[in-house]
């Protein structure tokens, strides 16, 4: 139920839609990313200096692959939510802000999808 006056509703000014879902999703992905980030750092140690065969071998381990997938999904979503707030805070031109927000939403989804695909491809034997 909107508490705005008719004039307020028509003018379209005021709060920028709902934010509770955004707030909770940000915290949820943050909590998930605490352990996932530490595990990611450990994986960087393992993958650093590894040749392609070794990388495929490592990724074939279900624990590595699933952890990385969770890190990617939680990370990209957390990133999208955070960058959304940054754009909303600093871009005041309505047209530019819309373009950037749409680009962010589509871009992070597409890149997240690409990263997930890459992990799966490597995990299944490349």
């Amino acid at each position, binding site marked *: 139920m909107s508490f705005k006056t008719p004039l307020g509703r028509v003018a379209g000014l005021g709060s920028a839609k709902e934010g509770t879902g955004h707030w909770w999703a940000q*915290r949820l992905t*943050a*909590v998930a*990313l*605490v352990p996932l*980030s530490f595990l990611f*750092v450990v994986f*960087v*140690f*393992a993958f*650093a*200096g590894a*040749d*392609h*065969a070794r*990388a*495929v071998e490592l*990724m074939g381990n279900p624990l590595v692959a699933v952890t990385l997938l969770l890190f990617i999904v939680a*990370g*990209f979503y957390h*990133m999208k939510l*955070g*960058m959304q707030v*940054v754009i909303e805070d600093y871009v005041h031109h309505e047209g530019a802000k819309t373009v950037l927000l749409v680009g962010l939403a589509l871009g992070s989804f597409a*890149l997240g999808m*690409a*990263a997930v*695909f*890459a*992990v799966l*491809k*490597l995990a299944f034997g*490349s």
Partner: protein
Amino acid sequence: MAQAERPLSPHLEIYKPQLTMVLSITHRFTGVGLAVGTLFLTWWLIAAAMGPEAYAFTQWIYGTWLGYLVLFGFSVSLFYHLCNGIRHLFWDVGLGYEMETVYRSGWSVVAATAVLTFAAWVIGLGVAG
């Protein structure tokens, strides 16, 4: 109706930097930095999925001094954002708002970032060789 150019009160020019505000903007700054770093991570994953040649090329680039510099910046950002993020989560459940606690937790975040970054690089360089 033309917008008149009105003078603004000075803020950044005169406000004495405090730990609270510095850590806060650093949290945002490292967040954006991590977002950029995620692009590099995605590039690496896609290169690996494309095959040995693309992978080797990417590993080579990431192994240059510039690559290591970017990786170092990424690691500092990651550990800082992680530690300060945990500090934020405590605030989200209503804990830690006392002034003394805010400053103590703030300096702990700075210290933890340094320790974790140092430890990670010592272990990482030792393991990778």
